Structures are given as structure tokens and as C-alpha cells.
């Protein structure tokens, strides 16, 4: 039992905290809107090897675990870095997991190795479709910028190439969302129960990394709110003196600190293949979604009308506090995933088990 970070983990956190503070300023975040992608920043992140931190050394990665990635994701969240971190990191780890060098299928192994190498050196953006629906029926988190998307088709993991015409969808969180409606060329890279297991594990990586991003966002939203509440005066005193302003910020901070521990425990449990790992991953994303919204909402609110204007940074946080979670899941639905994982599958019908399809939701 040790709740402290190692020196290496601390260095990772400090390195990325400093980098994003310098390279992902509010000006850069705004400049990257509405697409939500800063190519120059992405190149810097690729150059640090961030995407390979959680890749096995066999495949040329850093051999570290999910925790190091979560620490990076938290810093991405704090500075709203306009880069596609969660699904790309999960995709790279998925390629690493299904790749092998046993020589049984050289062609397939070469495809996987090629995809992974391209992802790590930044020549191609390889992302992940987090739902088991046809690509045309989901708004892909990195759809507007990804070159390849890994998806599960039945029990086959496929690498789909970006079709010719992809149109970015303008959206609340300034995320590079797009639907791949045209058929894309695809290559099967793994199949069978092991492929499904690896894909599910990758989606758990997405849960953890999105949770970490949301908590980083929430931490900074609390900071921004506290800084404003220390300066702004109403009725003759700083508004932070008023408990109705201060106390929700205190609750928000407790949620962030508690949620961070929950994320860290999830990283440990998944890396150590503890049976509690998947349930913890579901807990982490639900708790982070709730915490991030409450933190950003209160922080924006205490800015009064100013928080509502585009000049203030807090609106950047408020919009993403919702979008970063919703692009992955509805937390109420995720609660049923959690229930299945924690209490065993439901024996009574009545709850849908997949997101609404695009056509029927229009």
C-alpha cells in the first residue's frame, strides 16, 4: 500500500504540466477552435514520446503503465490541450496488445507494426471507435483528424482508413468530431474472443484517460474560480468570503482529490489485472463526469455575467466539461455497465445495452 507517486511518475507529471502550461495557453486553445486540433502542439507531444509511454518496450515504447498516461491526461485536461489524447493512446496500446512477434502471421503482424510505428512517430493519427456500432452511425471523437480508426466489427478488430470525404461537425466542446459515412477501406487485424477482450480493455483505457482529463479540467476550473473569488468584490468584500460562493468550490476540490485517487486505483487495478479493474473504470468515468460539470458550472456561475462571455477562459472549461464525457457515454447508461461489472449481468430486461443509433435519434 503506497498512495504516493514514484520519482519517475512525479517527473512525468511535472514535465507535462510545464509543457502544456507553455504550449497550451488559452490563446492557443482558442486559436484551435472550432476544429479542436493544434497540429504544432500535437507534434510537440509526439516528439516527447507521450503516446509510447504505455507501450511495451518490445514494440519500442516506454513500458510504463496506465498511471503514467493518466498523469499526462490530467495535465491535458488542466490546459484543455487541443490534441486527441484518449482514443489515440488507447488505440496504440490496443495495437501493442494484439500485435505479436510469434511469426505465425507475418502479413498481419506487419500491418499492426506499421500502424503502431506510424502512430508513435506522428505520421498518422490512429484513433479508436469507442462503440460497437458501424462507423457511419457514431460521431467519432477524432473523426475529423484521424487517418485510421480501429473498430470492432462482430468479433473482428479492423483498422479502417479515412474515407475521402469527411466533414468536421461543429460542436459544443470544439472537438474534432466527424462521422465516417462513406465506406472506408479496412484491414482485419485480429479476431476472436481475444480480440474482443483487447478491444474492451482499450475502451477501459478510454474511460480512465477521459476521467483523468475531466478531473484535470475540474481542478483548473476550481483554481480559476478561486482566483476570481479572491479578487472580485461585491457588497464591499471579496465574493470568496461568502460561503455560498466558497463552499461549492470546497466540495468541488474534494471531488477532484477523491476522483484522482479513484483514477489512480483504477490504473493500478487494470495494470495488475485485478478483478475490480473494469468496475473501477466505470466508476471513475461516471464520478469524473459528474465532478467536472459541478466544478465548471459553479466556477462559471461565480463569474456572474462575465463567465458567460467568450473573453473569459472559464467558458472554455464549461463547454468541455460536458463534451469530453458525453462524446464517450451517458453516465446514466454507464451506471448499468458498472452494475453489470459489479453485481453480475442483469437477469431482467428493460435497459438498452447500446447507444441510440444515429438515424433513429434524428
Amino acid at each position, binding site marked *: *500500500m*503506497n*498512495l*504516493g*507517486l*514514484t520519482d519517475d*511518475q512525479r517527473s512525468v507529471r511535472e514535465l507535462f504540466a510545464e509543457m502544456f502550461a507553455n504550449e497550451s495557453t488559452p490563446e492557443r486553445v482558442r486559436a484551435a477552435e472550432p476544429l479542436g486540433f493544434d497540429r504544432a502542439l500535437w507534434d510537440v507531444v509526439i516528439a516527447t514520446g507521450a503516446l509510447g509511454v504505455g507501450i511495451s518496450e518490445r514494440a519500442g515504447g516506454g513500458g510504463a503503465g496506465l*498511471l503514467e498516461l493518466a498523469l499526462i491526461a490530467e495535465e491535458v485536461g488542466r490546459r484543455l490541450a487541443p490534441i486527441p489524447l484518449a482514443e489515440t493512446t488507447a488505440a496504440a496500446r490496443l495495437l501493442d496488445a494484439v500485435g505479436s512477434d510469434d511469426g505465425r502471421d507475418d502479413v498481419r503482424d506487419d500491418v499492426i507494426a506499421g500502424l503502431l510505428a506510424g502512430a508513435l512517430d506522428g505520421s498518422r493519427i490512429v484513433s479508436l471507435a469507442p462503440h460497437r456500432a458501424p462507423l457511419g452511425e457514431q460521431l467519432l471523437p477524432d473523426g475529423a483528424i484521424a487517418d485510421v480508426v480501429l473498430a470492432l466489427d462482430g468479433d473482428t478488430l479492423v483498422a479502417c482508413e479515412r474515407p475521402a470525404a469527411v466533414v468536421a461537425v461543429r460542436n459544443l466542446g470544439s472537438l474534432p468530431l466527424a462521422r465516417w459515412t462513406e465506406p472506408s477501406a479496412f484491414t482485419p487485424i485480429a479476431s476472436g474472443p481475444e480480440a474482443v477482450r483487447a478491444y474492451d480493455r482499450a475502451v477501459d483505457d478510454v474511460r480512465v484517460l477521459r476521467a483523468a482529463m475531466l478531473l484535470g479540467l475540474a481542478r483548473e476550473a*476550481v483554481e480559476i474560480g*478561486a482566483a476570481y*473569488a*479572491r479578487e472580485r468584490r461585491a457588497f464591499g*468584500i*471579496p465574493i*470568496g*468570503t*461568502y*460561503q455560498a460562493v*466558497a*463552499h461549492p*468550490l*470546497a*466540495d468541488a*476540490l*474534494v*471531488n477532484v*482529490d*477523491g*476522483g484522482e*485517487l*479513484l483514477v*489512480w*486505483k483504477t*490504473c*493500478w*487495478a487494470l495494470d*495488475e489485472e485485478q478483478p475490480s479493474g473494469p*468496475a*473501477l473504470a*466505470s*466508476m471513475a468515468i*461516471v*464520478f469524473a463526469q459528474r465532478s467536472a460539470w459541478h466544478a465548471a458550472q459553479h466556477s462559471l456561475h461565480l463569474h456572474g455575467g462575465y463567465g458567460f462571455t467568450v473573453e473569459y477562459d472559464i467558458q472554455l472549461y464549461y463547454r468541455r466539461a460536458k463534451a469530453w464525457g458525453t462524446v464517450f457515454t451517458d453516465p*446514466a447508461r454507464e*451506471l*448499468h455497465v*458498472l*452494475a453489470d461489472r*459489479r*453485481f453480475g449481468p*442483469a*437477469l*431482467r430486461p*428493460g*435497459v438498452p445495452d447500446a447507444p441510440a443509433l444515429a438515424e433513429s435519434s434524428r
Partner: protein
Amino acid sequence: MDFAEPAHWAALRREAEAFAAAHVAESMIVEELETGDGVNRPLMLALGERGWIAPSWPVEEGGAGLDRMESAIVTDAIRRAGGPTIGYGTTLLPANAVRAMGTPELKRAILPGVARGETLICLGYTEPEGGSDVFQCTTRSVRDGDEWVINGQKMFTTFGHLADYCFLLTRSDPASRGPRGLTMFLVPMDTPGIDRQPVRTMGYERTNIVFYTDVRVSEFYRVGDVDGGLHVMRAALEAEQNIAPAARTPPLFRAACGWAEHTLAADGTRMIDGPNVRERLARLAIDAEVTELLGLRAAYFEELGAKPGPHAALFGPETYVVWSAEIVDMVGPEALVAWDDAEAVAGGAFEFHYRSAVASTIYGGSSEVLRSIIAETHLGLPRSRPKAS
């Protein structure tokens, strides 16, 4: 970062559970529900024999030499078995203050008995006119030679009718206001002039109003400096605010899961298979997990000598009180049945939790005080409460 429990924790937990099975009888649980004393002397003595009253004290001081996290395992096992822990758990707060700030003579007189489970110390902070504002103390102490004469009234002195001493906050400087001019004493409760009136709570607890009339206390029992009570109180309050003994979100979760797994719906399926129950229990599972993690964090920080902040003492009770209400809705009318009725489900646990939980958000000065501490010390916000001039 490693959440794996060291191998010896499991052995310690088994040992504590075996102890609890042997010493916490059904009759003890019923007696506690009937009296609400929060105290069982034979259990305390048995714990004391093992060094488990003050498990984190060194063995030569009567403890078990355990770290904070190991100590929590022991206490948790007793609490899970339903044994009353309020008396000896509360005793440790002033005992630790004496251990840190008492004279060598006072330590020798008091601490061995505490560790053996023979001595109970109640808290005499709160007054009728000042609850969360604890430093608004009006109970007077006046020096008279080698003695002090105490007059005043204290509220919510839990187990004050059974305690051997009261850790009493008094105003020694009559010209002072607020946190200055206060002095702490360990008042022997058999001293003439102490009158206790029982106060029953809706949560099956008994507490007391205690009146002090010309109570003469030897200088020997003073803790800390004359007019220096703030220093002593601050340490004792911080100790209370950094732990979350009243955070019963996890046991509520376990009780609710037990009910849902073993109760059938009208159509013959288990309650845990119904979507409403699943969604609720999944949400509760998250709050229970975070409560446990924040408790672990508090113990871990304390062990390092760092200050964790009152996160656990805020989050645990605040979620507990919300869930104590929501689970009653989930279970339905049967949840309303009290423990001593044959129709009670889960031993009346849900009725008990609903009654009991509301008090937990008052410990440590109330959730509002804890939030203000976080806002001021962790977020740099201005102090919200007026300072006494």
C-alpha cells in the same frame, strides 16, 4: 503507487474479525441499541489487553505499535461487527492531546489506564449557546491556590454519564473573547458539583447536558498552558477533522447490496436484477468507494506526518446522509420498520441509518466549518466567519 494490501493486513483483519466474533455478542448490539451509551466496558478491557484501544501507540505505552492504516483495520472490524466504538474512539482524541501536551505526571496518571481500556474521557467543548463556534466558550475557570474552580454548562457530552474524565474547555481570562484566554482541563467526573442530565437522540443515542457548579479541579489536571487552550484545542479538533469515523457510506452500501441480492420481487426475480435498484446501487457503490479512498488517504497522509485536510470527514458524512434517505425509498415501506420489530429487514439497518446519519454531518464542527477550512487552507479564499475582537 500501489493499492495492493500488504500480506500481513489480511492476517490482521482476520485476527480482528475473530476477536470481534468472540467479544461482540448479539446481546451487546441489542444493549447498545437500547441504551445508546456508545460504551461497553468488558469489550474495552478485552481490546486493551491486546493493545487495540490505542493501536497506534507503541507497545511499551500499552498500544500495539501499528501504523494508522493497520489501526483502522482493527477498529473497522469491531465497528463492522456492531460493537460500540464511540466511547473508546472518542477517548483517544483527548488522550492523544494529553500525550502530546500534558505534563509527565499527568501522562503517567492517565494514559496507561486509557490504553488498558479502563479509562473513558468525554469531550466538554460544546455549550448551549455555541455549537460550531466552539471558542465562544463561557464556562469559567478561576484559579484558587493549587486548584481551579469551574462553573458552567456543556451540551452534547456523549457518554458523560459513564466517563472517568471530561476534556473540558474553559475561559480562564474573564476579559478575553473568542479563542484567546482559554484553558483546558481533564476534569475527574466524580468531583462534587457535576450534574448530568440525559438527552435522548432520534438516532438511538444518549447524550448529556452537564452542569458544573463550583467544581474544584487540581492544577495537576490542567492540559497545556494557562490561557493557552487554543493550542491544545486546535490539535484535538484537527485530529477529529482529519478522521472520518462517522462515514458509514460503505456499510450502508453493503447492507443495501445484501438486501438487493436476497430479496425477491413480485415476479420472482431478485431485486438486484431490477434496473432501478441497479442504477441506485451503482451510484452508491461509487460514493462508497470514494469514501473509502479518502479515508485511506487521510490515514496515509497522517502516517507521513502531513495534513490531509478534512476531505474524508466532509465527503463521507455528506454522502452518507443523502444515501441513508435514498436507500429507504429503494427498499420501500419495509425499510421503515424499526430493529426491534419482527418485520424489520436487514436488522432494521435502513431505519437506523436514516435516523443516525444526520448527526454525522455535525461532527468536527459541521460540514460548513469543514468546507470553510478547505476553502481557506486549500483554495486561499478569505475567512468567512467574523473574527472575535
